[in-house]
């Protein structure tokens, strides 16, 4: 009895609540970087806070943001996904094949695009799990294969959706007046991703594997199988990004995609997710993606010469992430 009481002191019964509150506070504060950036640009340019411009920022965030959602899952396991960029391209090309070339119904084409994404994820997952390839290699290879296949399948020419009625409305339409569907899709996808990450086995095991893969396996979790599942989930987001991209451009651009993977990963990491795995938040990823898009947009709105924009973005990223580290203090 006495034992229990005494030792309980060491654990400090107040901790749990304090911890809970602190986490909530953190999530609120995570906006801070974004808010500061927003505030700065609002003062610097009269055009910045225009709804049209904010909409532009959100639109620019949408595709990279959706890719980043998927990448968050892979990064949560301690892996990395370099194939999100060109994989997204392959998905838009295949959507083009389904809809524009084969003339399949809209829903089928869209689901087909998602399926191609899942397939890309499946191959990544199998290569990582069963061939034991480092995720960097597996997804680098997939990045190249997807790029090549996009060109092969499209005949190196864009596929246009001009004849596919309503396809462009997928991204450009406004179910909620004033808010383009692409943005709506991004937010809905983020909400789903947040639930999957924190409330389903897929998410839980992704974090667990990232935290300690061996221990997770010893605990009886079929790590290999779950890794495949996690990569497939990531692939689905890649597929969604591909469909949204195709709709936004009303065409599938086979040459696009390279470089998007770095942006997506950067959004994830700026959002506070650790590349070592085990720690990940979807909200962070969304904020990370918004920070990137806002920075680019704001500097452009201010008509900063393009060569200086890069320098500024680099410096602001350092400051934003450092502020975040300071804020999180020792917990990080």
């Amino acid at each position, binding site marked *: 009895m006495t034992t229990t009481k005494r030792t309980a002191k060491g654990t400090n019964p107040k901790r749990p609540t304090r911890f809970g509150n602190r986490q909530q506070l953190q999530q609120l504060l995570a906006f801070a970087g974004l808010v500061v950036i927003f505030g700065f640009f609002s003062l*610097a*340019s*009269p*055009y*910045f806070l*225009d709804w*049209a*411009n904010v909409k*532009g920022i959100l*639109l*620019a965030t949408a*595709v990279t943001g959706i890719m980043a959602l998927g990448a968050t899952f892979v990064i949560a396991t301690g892996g990395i996904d370099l194939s999100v960029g060109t994989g997204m391209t392959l998905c838009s090309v295949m959507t083009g094949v389904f809809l524009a070339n084969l003339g399949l119904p809209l829903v089928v084409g869209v689901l087909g695009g998602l399926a191609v994404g899942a397939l890309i994820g499946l191959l990544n997952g199998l290569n990582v799990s069963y061939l034991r390839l480092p995720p960097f290699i597996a997804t680098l290879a997939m990045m190249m294969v997807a790029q090549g296949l996009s*060109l092969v399948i499209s005949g*190196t*020419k*864009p596929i*246009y959706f*001009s004849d596919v009625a309503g396809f*462009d409305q997928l991204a*450009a339409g406004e179910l909620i007046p004033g808010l383009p569907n692409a943005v709506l899709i991004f937010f809905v996808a983020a909400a789903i991703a947040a639930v999957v990450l924190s409330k389903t086995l897929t998410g839980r095991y992704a974090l667990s594997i990232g935290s300690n893969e061996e221990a997770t396996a010893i605990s009886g979790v079929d790590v290999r199988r779950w890794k495949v599942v996690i990569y497939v989930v990531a692939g689905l987001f890649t597929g969604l990004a591909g469909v949204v*991209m195709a709709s*936004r*451009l*009303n*065409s599938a*651009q*086979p*040459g*696009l995609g*390279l*470089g998007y993977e770095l942006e997506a990963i950067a959004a994830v990491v700026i959002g506070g997710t650790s590349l070592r795995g085990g720690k990940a938040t979807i909200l962070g990823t969304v904020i990370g993606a918004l920070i990137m898009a806002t920075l*680019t*947009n704001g500097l*452009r*709105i*201010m*008509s900063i*010469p*393009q060569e200086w924009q890069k320098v500024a973005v680099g410096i602001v990223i350092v400051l934003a992430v450092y502020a975040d580290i300071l804020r999180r203090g020792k917990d990080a």
Partner: protein
Amino acid sequence: GSGGSGGGETGAGDKPYVALVSKGFQHQFWQAVKQGADDAAAELDVEVTFEGPETETEVEKQLTMLQTALDKNPDAIGYAALDSEASIPMMTDAESRGIPVIAFDSGVDSEVPVTTVSTDNLAASAEAAKHMAELVGSGKIAIVGHDQTSQTGQQRVEGFTQYILENAPDIEIVDTQYAAGDQLKSADAAKAILQAHPDLKGIYGTNEGSAIGVVKAVQETGKSGKLTVIGFDSGKAQTDAIRDGLMAGAITQDPIKMGYETVKAAVAAINGEELEPVIDSGFYWYDKTNIDDEDIAAVLYE
């Protein structure tokens, strides 16, 4: 430096503001376009900003730039579309807001642009092919392209290939490789081609980076003089190569004029003047013989 360093006030100020969204930024060609635009801006007393994505595949990035440009509420927009189809909604948006659009470099497949300032890439590359055919006579040649998917990249290969097929039956194009306009990678690609086809008679590089890469490859394999190299665009390395006889000649557009005419047309549009539907910024063949001619020297950039 940049012409539009006036910051956020530009559009609100009294000077008219013209936003140019091009296909590229860091390449010498686009820098020359920018220079022409800046010249015109100084001359006509307008504000000009100039932006473009890093590579000519980044359609989405360019659209975002165009979007931001529109959000700045300019008096006119100059736009070199990477994919005209994809930009239709924004063209419509510009039209509805009464912002005149000037297309440059390549056409925008839309009614919106009031005029198009461009070079006919198909014709220009056919011109390159014509000189290649004259210089080589017969045998195998190859192409080092700079971009497989962009319109410009494709047309510069297409126009060339088309001409050879139709007009030079004795010449065979044995290989076409792409190396992103990166000089080093273009050199590596050209070397591989030379290795695979020891009897190659000529190589055509479709932009500055590709062409210099080809020259590099020829130098490094010690084949200078045995091979006809034809390039595209200018830049010091290329003009040097032509002077030194490493390159037979090249096609140059007139990027400075392109930039200049675009801004000039924009100002005219702002003032409500009528414009020709097409303003040809032209292209020229240049080689050792005419490189120092005044009219050629004027369109070449360092």
